[in-house]
């Protein structure tokens, strides 16, 4: 548990940005907080759930989480919603109209951009949403600012009748830094007022709201011009001055401690006049933003032509000192100081692997055996790792739930070459509930020929194991209604005889079932039902070992892909006029093995047996 939950006012703590925001949300008197997990945003709600006197939930997706927050705000409660950058794409339908209607209780949406893509399918700059939806954007640079700005964002939200975007990046969410916390304030819930008609966004109502929204944006621009969140540090070395925001500010300060810097905390609407005044005090102005040139382009449009930004800095990734220093020296026409003394050395890679006994391995081992006969549309979660070694059994990953619609599109766009290939969609339980259900409904309705593998491991695995509507528990770990996946997919129109539940550890059964279903020309759903090995629902069994003199070196067990299995010895058999045969004799790390038996099922000579207790000498 985060130490911040029990910390008294004025305590000084080492907190991640996510932990600091949770504290700020609680102090701001928020009554309702909702999110769907997503790196690097997940820990905000996990930490918020530890505080008393507020309601916090895992929602089925980001759009629903925002709608929950909107309903609470309409009812006069302060409401908070957190998501990763791609989550905002999902939530944006609700967002784009809600911003027109405004708020009653303060509404803050924390959007966490994965700058540098530590665990995401793309890199997006969520500051765009401020421009798109005409709402203010706050950009903290570290934990203390994150804590302070989330509180300030609630005040601004209520003052200007607008939701506020708190734009974060991985280097705010996952960096721990010192935070001095404060006291909890209180905000009584007013309750929903049925006499207010502004929530019904018919064209007539929305038309009335549009001018108000534009006027509001003008007022916010004035507020940004004088906001104490936009700071100027005059500096002494006037050769190059910087306008920057978020963690990029920290990198600028680190790289050029004496340079003049204007730091935008209230970064949209852009305080153009204040920046023009700052510009006049420096020789050259460089805009340092992660990742798109938004402020830069707006300044250029406002007539500031002699400024630099993406002409000298990359448009992707983090703008760390090793990126900034050479670019700024080059701008000044100087040779940059040497960086590393020692050469960069790249040994083998360490791609993420599935855990020992991960039930997904059984599915991908089986699909890898059918590789030539299937095309496989995948989805977002741990099972995306099926695209990698040794399975190579996943052909697409685009967005949450996309496996279903993409599979249908593949089915409807067959060529002479692919007409006999089966289309398989692979999706996890949490992802299916998030956005996969609609896609499966579309497959059924449009008579698609798709075999969907629903990998129910009873958790949201990739983000660290969060509960969802299919686990039977809520955000607090309390008992909750649990969806029945077989009934759900039947309700979506899949025929009862085409719905199968299977234990993915039983490889021959799984193999027969997948082979049977891909031969049938209608939608089928195969639900695997082993829990994630890292979840509370997993029961460890007795570890296994390889009997050396029974192992024939066939490598079947290696191809299961379990990290507990490794090659003990390799033998190459030379053959005349034919490729060499490589025999790989294996061993099992008993400390890692949890006895799932998948490798046992793959082993012809039955060389894998329960490990004997080691005799104490």
């Amino acid at each position: 548990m985060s130490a911040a939950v029990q910390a008294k006012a004025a305590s000084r703590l080492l907190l991640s940005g996510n932990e600091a925001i949770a504290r700020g949300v609680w102090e701001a008197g928020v009554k309702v907080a909702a999110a769907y997990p997503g790196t690097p945003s997940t820990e905000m709600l996990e930490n918020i759930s530890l505080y008393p006197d507020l309601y916090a939930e895992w929602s089925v997706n980001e759009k629903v989480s925002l709608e929950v927050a909107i309903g609470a705000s309409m009812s006069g409660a302060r409401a908070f919603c957190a998501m990763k950058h791609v989550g905002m794409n999902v939530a944006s339908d609700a967002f784009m109209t809600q911003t027109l209607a405004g708020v009653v209780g303060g509404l803050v949406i924390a959007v966490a951009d994965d700058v540098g893509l530590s665990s995401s399918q793309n890199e997006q700059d969520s500051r765009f949403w401020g421009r798109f939806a005409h709402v203010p954007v706050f950009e903290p640079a570290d934990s203390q600012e994150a804590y302070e700005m989330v509180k300030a964002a609630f005040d601004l939200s209520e003052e200007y009748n607008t939701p506020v975007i708190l734009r974060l990046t991985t280097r705010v969410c996952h960096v721990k830094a010192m935070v001095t916390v404060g006291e909890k304030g209180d905000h009584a819930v007013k309750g929903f007022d049925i006499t207010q008609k502004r929530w019904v966004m018919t064209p007539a109502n929305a038309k009335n709201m549009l001018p108000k929204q534009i006027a509001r944006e003008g007022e916010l621009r004035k507020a940004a011009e004088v906001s104490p969140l936009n700071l100027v540090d005059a500096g002494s070395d006037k050769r190059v001055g910087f306008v920057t925001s978020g963690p990029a500010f920290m990198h600028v300060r680190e790289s050029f401690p004496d340079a003049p810097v204007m730091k935008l905390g209230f970064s949209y609407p852009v305080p153009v006049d204040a920046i023009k005044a700052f510009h006049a005090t420096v020789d050259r102005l460089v805009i340092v933003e992660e990742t798109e040139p938004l402020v830069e382009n707006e300044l250029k449009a406002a007539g500031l032509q002699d400024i630099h930004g993406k002409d000298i800095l990359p448009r992707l990734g983090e703008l760390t000192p090793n990126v900034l220093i050479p670019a700024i020296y080059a701008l000044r026409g100087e040779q940059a100081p040497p960086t590393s003394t020692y050469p960069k050395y790249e040994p083998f890679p360490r791609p993420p692997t599935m855990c020992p006994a991960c039930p997904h391995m059984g599915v991908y081992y089986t699909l890898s055996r059918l590789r030539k006969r299937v095309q496989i549309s995948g989805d977002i979660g741990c099972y995306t790792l099926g695209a990698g070694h040794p399975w190579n059994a996943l052909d697409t990953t685009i967005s949450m739930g996309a496996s279903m619609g993409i599979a249908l599109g593949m089915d409807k766009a067959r060529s002479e070459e692919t007409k006999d290939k089966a289309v398989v969609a692979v999706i996890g339980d949490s992802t299916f509930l998030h956005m996969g259900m609609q896609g499966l409904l579309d497959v059924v309705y449009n008579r698609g020929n798709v075999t969907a593998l629903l990998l129910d491991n009873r958790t949201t695995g990739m983000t660290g194991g969060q509960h969802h509507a299919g686990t039977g528990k809520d955000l607090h770990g309390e008992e909750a209604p649990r969806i029945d996946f077989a009934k759900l997919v039947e309700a979506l129109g899949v025929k009862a005889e085409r719905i199968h539940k299977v234990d993915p550890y039983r490889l021959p059964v799984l193999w027969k079932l997948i082979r049977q279903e891909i031969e049938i020309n209608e939608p089928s759903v195969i639900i695997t039902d082993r829990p994630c090995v890292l979840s509370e629902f997993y029961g460890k069994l007795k570890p296994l070992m390889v009997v050396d003199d029974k192992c024939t070196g066939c490598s079947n067990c290696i191809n299961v892909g379990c990290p507990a299995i490794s090659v003990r010895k390799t033998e190459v058999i030379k053959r005349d006029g034919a490729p060499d045969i490589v025999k790989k004799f294996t061993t099992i790390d008993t400390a890692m093995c949890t006895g799932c038996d998948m490798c046992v099922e793959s082993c012809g000579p039955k060389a894998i047996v329960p490990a004997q207790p080691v005799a104490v000498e």
Partner: protein
Amino acid sequence: MSDIITNILVCGTGGQGVMTAAEILAQTAIAKGCDVKKSEVAGMAQRGGVVTSHVRFGKKVWSPVITPGTADILVAFEVAEGARWADMLRPGGIAMVNTIRLTPPVVSAGLFKYPEDPVATMRAAGVTVYDFDAGAIARGLGDLRLVNTVMLGAIADYLPFPAEDLEEQILGRFRARKPAMVEVNHKAFDLGRKAARERAEGAQKLAANQ
């Protein structure tokens, strides 16, 4: 307090305790009144990937990440990871390396080779490396999880505060949660410190002979 910032890069693989070691270093620096930033690049670390944690402390820390070529100490929980991150060190920085070799599936499957001698590669590049088998020390004390304390003990004499402050931070954590483990952690810390000192003396002798 001087304006100089101390940069420590802790690296290893998922599940080795990199984050915990970094957290203990950060808390020790806080106890000494420092400003601290600790950055984690875990990504999908839980799945056996590369894990690093940047710990920076001093009077005022700006960037949360260590700039390549400025790390004072590299704490490597695994030897090839030590070689991977050695270019982060400043001239004269120290790589404290646990010699355990953890082979990922892509290596055991024969797609990539594990380097013969990562320490030799580092030394050939001019890096000061103090390498020893922290796992053997931990096992000798009866618990492989003690590697964390052994490695922290190993760097304790290279920090801008007394080794005892770091040790107290570790023992304090156990005193609160697992008092039975205090004594064995004290031993692990001392043995780590001793191992590093022996390696440092060995390196000095080597330099004197050359």
